């Protein structure tokens, strides 16, 4: 019981570091020095001490949005296995709960955005949901493909079952799942090529625009929730790539954390190399992810 709790707190602590790594890698590609690695921590601290400003058109939904989002992400984090080790809240069927918790977070964000009454946020909300139509099935089916490989419907069970030997016998499935999960990762965390986190132009924002009106601790919640989302989705990918192989908890956890940072670095590299896709082409990308998930599921089912 102690080890899963330590894992949880480690995740809580290290999650904001991921975006720092991504930004640093992007700066490196751009020949700049870039923001400090711990910038997100400083931002959270700064925001926590500010007073929030609420628009007169908003209701309780607007205030509840970030809170619900963060709560959902904290629960989702509790379900996440850490380097193949079970999390402290795992049970059979928790992968469905994970998908729905992420959906709940998205719902809260979208409602809060719509609640401001501004067309700006409404546009961002509609785009966000439009992409979710493709991203969620892709995500769900990828997890289903993994679940079919054994281990019941529990994430921890699935990843405990996943051994390096699985990569030899089921490599097509696992490769397809990894690529699909990675595309979903890019889409859900609003990374390039789906969405540019740095842009603040009306035509190009998706996620940024939804949180435009939040301030103070609400914004801190949103940033922290986003960091946790990075960790959750990245953690799934890391668990697939790095099936547990050594018996030691320390080695496994260390490898897992390293893999997380490696994933963050890869995302940074991708963001530096690729431009943003046209909005009309993003569904194609997500449909590719959906296709891969379906293929992986069919392959796994026929095995």
């Amino acid at each position, binding site marked *: 019981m102690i080890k899963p709790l330590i894992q949880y707190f480690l995740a809580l602590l290290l999650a904001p570091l991921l975006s720092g790594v991504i930004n640093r890698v992007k700066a490196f590609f751009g020949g700049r020095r870039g923001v400090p690695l711990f910038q997100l921590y400083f931002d959270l601290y700064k925001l926590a001490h500010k007073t929030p400003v609420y628009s007169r058109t908003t209701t309780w939904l607007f205030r509840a949005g970030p809170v619900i989002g963060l709560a959902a992400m904290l629960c989702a984090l509790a379900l996440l296995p850490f380097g193949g080790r079970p999390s402290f809240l795992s049970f059979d069927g928790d992968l469905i709960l994970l998908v729905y918790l992420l959906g709940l977070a998205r719902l809260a964000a979208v409602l809060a955005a719509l609640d401001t009454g501004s067309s700006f946020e409404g546009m961002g909300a509609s785009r966000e949901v439009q992409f979710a139509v493709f991203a969620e099935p892709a995500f769900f089916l990828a997890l289903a493909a993994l679940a079919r490989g054994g281990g019941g419907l529990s994430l921890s069970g699935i990843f405990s079952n996943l051994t390096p030997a699985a990569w*030899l*016998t089921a*490599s*097509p499935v696992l*490769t*397809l799942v990894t690529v699909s999960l990675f595309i979903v990762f890019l889409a859900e965390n609003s990374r390039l090529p789906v969405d540019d986190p740095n842009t603040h132009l009306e035509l190009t924002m998706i996620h940024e625009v939804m949180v435009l009106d939040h301030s103070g601790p609400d914004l801190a919640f949103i940033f922290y929730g986003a960091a946790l989302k990075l960790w959750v989705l990245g953690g799934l990918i890391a668990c697939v790539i790095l099936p547990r192989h050594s018996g030691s908890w320390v080695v496994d956890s260390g490898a897992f954390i390293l893999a997380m940072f490696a994933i963050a670095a890869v995302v940074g590299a991708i963001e530096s190399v690729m431009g943003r896709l046209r909005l009309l082409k993003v*569904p*194609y990308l997500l*449909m590719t992810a959906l*296709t891969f998930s*379906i*293929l992986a599921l*069919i*392959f796994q089912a*026929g*095995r």
Partner: protein
Amino acid sequence: MTTLAELIIVAVILLNLSLAASGTLAACIRLAAAQGVIAALLPLLAGREVPPGTLVFCGAVILLKGAIFPWLLTRARIKANVSKDADPVIGYPASIILCLGAFAASSWLGARLPLPETARVAWIVPASLSTIFTGFLLLTTRTKAITQVLGYLVIENGIYIFGLALFVEQPLMVEMAILLDVFVAVFVMGITIFHISREFDHIDTAELSQLRDWHSGEAK
């Protein structure tokens, strides 16, 4: 070695999907050529002793499908001066979904068709059937003549893969005859495409519709 063969099958299926989604003619030609070459590698991975006849045959297939057919078709494409395919009749997302559905259906079918125990790689029948379906899709929903020829080539790829599934000892004569026929067919089609582009100034077969039985609104 079975995993490598499986990876090749997966690659074939992924190539099907990218063919269904691709809009540029040059890309389509390359994808179909890649599919042919990859499929030609399959008998070499059977994991047993490879007789020299099979080696020569695989080399011939790779040469034909990887070099000669793309060259013929690219020549036709350049002479006809086309680069982009016209919008397909059913749209790219629908094409991809259809291909996926075909793959699911052929997996189901593949489980029903009792294969002899000599066929060890499990996904060959679904892969071949879905490749054939993708070829049909290209043939019927695309209007540029070159894409239709590519559809025919993809159908032949699928049939080739299916033949591999059934005959572990290659009946070399039959496969050779098939290959020869495909070569002559593509050759003749290439010549015809050249004639079409010269006669019509385009190779859009949707425009080839003068011969029909329903003459609506025609003044006599």
